């Protein structure tokens, strides 16, 4: 008798998708667990970890935000290679406000997030009509160009950068600010992508002509998505400015462009949660590999390649599938 593997939803998944979810604790926990886990994790980690790993956690959160911002853009059909642009513009906005006018970090960070988003949108407005690799190339080039402009014209401190920023009041404010923002961004924008608005964005990447045929101005939606992604990136840049108390040319470095993409791909693109999960794996791993010295990048690269070949759907999709579905062997009739 021939057999094949069947993949079906778990009973608990089916029961907990509607009002019956309220009928037992088990169903409620099944629903709540995936939501509670990241919340509790993000809030508990800073308390559990030591001083060094708390600093690592800050950059994990920053890369997670950049990865989310990349994912939102990718969902709208714009594959960006220049998350460093968003990061750097936000960092310089906050730095300039704080350095020249002495504005408090609690004002510079939100202002830089909004203004950074606007500036990035303006930068990329002319290339919005380009698709695929052309858009990627332009986003890759702009941060490199900005670095050279700062170097050549010596504006904003030139090669030395601006230092002596006001730090945030305490390390607990620092860490819970970024964790709070990360969780808010993650849950809000996940909800947004599931809404009708998010469907339009996904539709643009799937088949933009059909979206136009639905009477939607896709360029206006692309601008909005660009602004959202830009703001998230600019926020993380502005935040890091006040953590390092310094802003300079390194904010445009290629790491801020490449690592978020790696995080999103390893975690599973398209879900935002996958991007976050990827950042939470990759950044600490790159720290843990520091002991290997020069071999660190090699090991890191090997890990990435193995992951992409073996599990191209991403960790998050895999876990999600295992959580909701199970497999069993069934006999093929006839």
């Amino acid at each position, binding site marked *: 008798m*021939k057999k094949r*593997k069947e993949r079906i939803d778990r009973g608990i998944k089916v029961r907990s998708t509607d009002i019956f979810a309220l009928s037992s604790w088990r169903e409620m926990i099944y629903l709540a667990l995936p939501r509670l886990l990241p919340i509790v994790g993000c809030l508990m980690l800073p308390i559990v970890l030591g001083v060094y790993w708390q600093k690592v956690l800050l950059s994990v959160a920053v890369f997670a935000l950049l990865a989310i911002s990349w994912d939102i853009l990718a969902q709208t059909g714009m594959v960006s290679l220049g998350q460093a642009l968003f990061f750097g513009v936000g960092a310089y906005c906050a730095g300039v406000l704080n350095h020249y006018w002495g504005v408090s970090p609690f004002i510079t960070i939100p202002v830089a997030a909004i203004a950074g988003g606007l500036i990035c949108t303006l930068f990329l407005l002319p290339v919005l009509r380009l698709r695929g690799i052309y858009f990627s190339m332009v986003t890759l080039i702009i941060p490199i160009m900005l670095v050279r402009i700062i170097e050549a014209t010596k504006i904003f401190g030139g090669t030395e950068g601006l230092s002596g920023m006001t730090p945030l009041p305490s390390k607990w404010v620092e860490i819970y600010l970024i964790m709070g923002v990360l969780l808010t961004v993650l849950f809000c924008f996940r909800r947004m992508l599931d809404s009708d608005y998010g469907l339009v964005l996904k539709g643009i990447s799937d088949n933009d002509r059909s979206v136009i045929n639905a009477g939607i101005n896709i360029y206006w939606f692309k601008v909005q998505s660009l602004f959202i992604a830009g703001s998230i990136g600019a926020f993380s840049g502005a935040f890091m400015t006040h953590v390092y108390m310094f802003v300079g040319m390194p904010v445009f470095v290629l790491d801020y462009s490449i690592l978020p993409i790696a995080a999103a791909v390893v975690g599973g693109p398209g879900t935002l949660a996958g991007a976050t999960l990827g950042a939470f794996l990759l950044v600490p791993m790159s720290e843990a590999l520091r002991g290997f010295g020069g071999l660190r990048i090699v090991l890191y690269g090997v890990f990435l390649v193995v992951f992409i070949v073996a599990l191209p*759907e991403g960790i998050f*999709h895999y876990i999600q599938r295992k959580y909701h579905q199970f497999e069993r062997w069934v006999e*093929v009739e*006839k």
Partner: protein
Amino acid sequence: MLEVNNLMVFFENALALNGLSLEVREGEIVGLIGSNSAGKTTLMNTVSGLIIDMKIKEMRKGGQRITVYGNIIYDGEDITETAPNQRVKKGIVLSRERHPIFPESSVMENFKIAGYLRSKTEVRETMDFVFTLFPPLVKLKNRKAGFLSGGEQQMLAIGRAMVVRPKLLLLDEPLLGLSPLMQKAVVDAIVNLNRESGITVLLSEQFARPVLPMVDRAYVVENGMLTLSGTGPELMNNPEIKAAYFGV
């Protein structure tokens, strides 16, 4: 020439082909009549081997699991596990549904890509033959394939399959989206190429009216199973076929 035995294809839990068996003899034109979701395209993909590629891709990204049971015998050889490019070398060539052309390349370039396996003189000869089959293509040699009309794209698609010099030509819905006049031109061309170069043809179609007169034999597929088979004239006079597939 081609023998399909008890073919079952699952897309995850959905059964696309349910124990389908059919036979194509050398030099025949065999029709495969069925409505939407009958399993025509799945059969074509399975015979041409594309399903092996789809299976691996889906498996890699954790998508739908595709399961294939049964076997395909071509020229007395079991090719169920043979890779699609190897099947092309053996002479099985599929022209996929919906004008599968390279839209960014010109008509000539499209032919040249298809003729990669063959020598230049062979390609030139076949191309001359294709141009006699489809005279409208001659004027469009240098136009980008994406800017051709639907009918011209379909001619190009069949022509491209021809340039590979198949022994068994699989045509998946060659008449899709064509006007009755265009349909007639394509049907005539298919009959011509079968008569003149002796290529065996297996084609699938939703409407029986344009297809049945030209085929030697035809199979009717419903829900992944064969329900009827017979020669063209036999099926033409079958009242069930008239009701279901003549689209009156």
